[in-house]
């Protein structure tokens, strides 16, 4: 794919903005005979917001789930210096690697507050984190007694991010946080991500909405057919003909 992807103005290579918290080297993941990730390399420095963009089926969720310990892989994914595959997902959560999944995976028949409470099951100070989350998404406080399954998609997304923040993440993996959301909710989520970043949380944002990703990321990786075909700053990628034509509407 990379060879057909237009002139590579933005180089594919590894760069980080700080001490590496996550290091991904030559990662391959397959579902039976289908190769979902094919030699992905990625570095995330502490405090950075790195985005992985790409179309449906590019491998973004596969990458997110591999990083969080839910999928077996070949190659290396190192979180805080330790190989991810040597830990189960729950141990990674204890160590601060928190994922907010595309499907949200909320506890639907529990209240908003109980969902947030469970976010501190293994880490995070409940009172302190709750104050931060309610300050970030006031809607959640207004609906604290409401069952999660009765909320709108946007509110559920806020709750999913809020629950992840309750765990006091060191690396927050956000998988498609804007998927299917109305523009007005997008603004809330966007503002929320800015605030989380200001808190110093390292974020990996897997996102199909390229404009949204470019507005937040320090560096962007374009994933297509399981391969990183472009890497660079948002400014560099905005100047890339292929990205402009294929993802930014010319």
């Amino acid at each position, binding site marked *: 794919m990379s060879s057909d992807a237009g002139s590579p103005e933005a180089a594919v290579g590894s760069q980080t903005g700080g001490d590496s918290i996550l290091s991904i080297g030559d990662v391959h993941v397959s579902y039976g005979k289908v190769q979902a990730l094919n030699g992905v390399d990625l570095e995330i420095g502490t405090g950075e917001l790195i985005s992985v963009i790409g179309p449906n089926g590019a491998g973004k969720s596969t990458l997110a789930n591999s990083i969080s310990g839910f999928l077996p892989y070949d190659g290396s994914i190192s979180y805080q210096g330790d190989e991810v595959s040597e830990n189960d997902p729950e141990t990674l*959560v204890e160590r601060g690697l928190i994922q*907010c999944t595309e499907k949200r995976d909320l*506890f639907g028949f529990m209240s908003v507050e109980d969902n947030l409470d469970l976010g501190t*099951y293994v880490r995070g100070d409940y009172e302190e984190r709750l104050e931060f989350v309610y300050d970030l998404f006031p809607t959640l406080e207004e609906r604290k007694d409401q069952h999660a399954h009765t909320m709108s998609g946007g509110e559920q997304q806020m709750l999913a991010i809020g629950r*992840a923040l309750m765990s006091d993440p060191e690396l927050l993996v956000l998988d498609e946080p804007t998927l299917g959301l109305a523009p007005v909710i997008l603004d809330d989520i966007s503002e929320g991500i800015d605030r989380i970043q200001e808190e110093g949380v390292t974020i990996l944002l897997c996102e199909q909405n390229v404009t949204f990703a470019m507005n937040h990321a320090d560096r962007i990786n374009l994933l297509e057919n399981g391969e990183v075909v472009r890497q660079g700053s948002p400014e560099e990628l905005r100047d890339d003909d292929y990205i402009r034509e294929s993802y930014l509407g010319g």
Partner: protein
Amino acid sequence: MVNLSVISTIIVQAAMISALYALIAIGFTLIFGVGGVLNLAHGATITMGAFSAYYAGQFGLGVPGAVLASVTIPALFAGVLYLGMVKRLEDEPIMVMITTLVVSVVIEQAIVVFEGTTSRALPPLIQGQFSIAGSTFQNLLGAMFVVSWLLIGLLFLFVNYTKTGKGILAVSMSHKGASLVGIKSSRINLITWIIAGAFAGIAGLFLGSWLTADFAMGQAQLVLSFSIVVVGGIGSIRGSVIGAYLIGFLEIATTNLVSSSLQGLAPLVVLVVVLLVKPEGLFGREFTE
């Protein structure tokens, strides 16, 4: 014409026995609701509870020893069954059904080998009688009612007000969601198997004391558990309690008003009617999305 005394007998007796049925069914539905698998060794675990008490009596350990044995041995057995077999097969519910069924047969056959097919009497837990509205009942039935509701109440408090209990609720709703907040599903599953084993053991103790213990006593209880949880909604604790009382009352009413030979038919009739009219059960699966 049915007189008042018969009606009060039916109501009180059914209320007491249904409490035990609820205890039995809750263990069965807890495992399904949290782990998504059916434990067909649940009936045999009840039998194990009864025979643990029986052997404790044989060894001269008295009532306290019988109670302790009837709780700890089935609870440990259920924990070992989960860790040794079920945990490896969790993603294959059919294999779990087959495996637990085989284990159930092995337990029953082991009892046949050691004790034969003859019924055994357990050490009397409580003696004496009490009267309500002119009808007399064994104190044992009263204890069965109180202990069953006490345990159901404790389970309710445990599930709703402790950290581990909330973990159980979380896993019952979403395994992935639970993992995302650091809850280890296998640890939660182990706890539910141990609780279900302990409840089954207590049920075996009461059933064995009230009637007698024999190698096949768990078979009817397994069918009963299955009927109750299907009627109430598989995975629903509230549904299990309602289902237990529905079936319990029907069973006792049939025995008292029609014929005791039709006692076993009542749960099956209710089961068929519910499957035809409301196949998801009265309460569905209250937790699962």
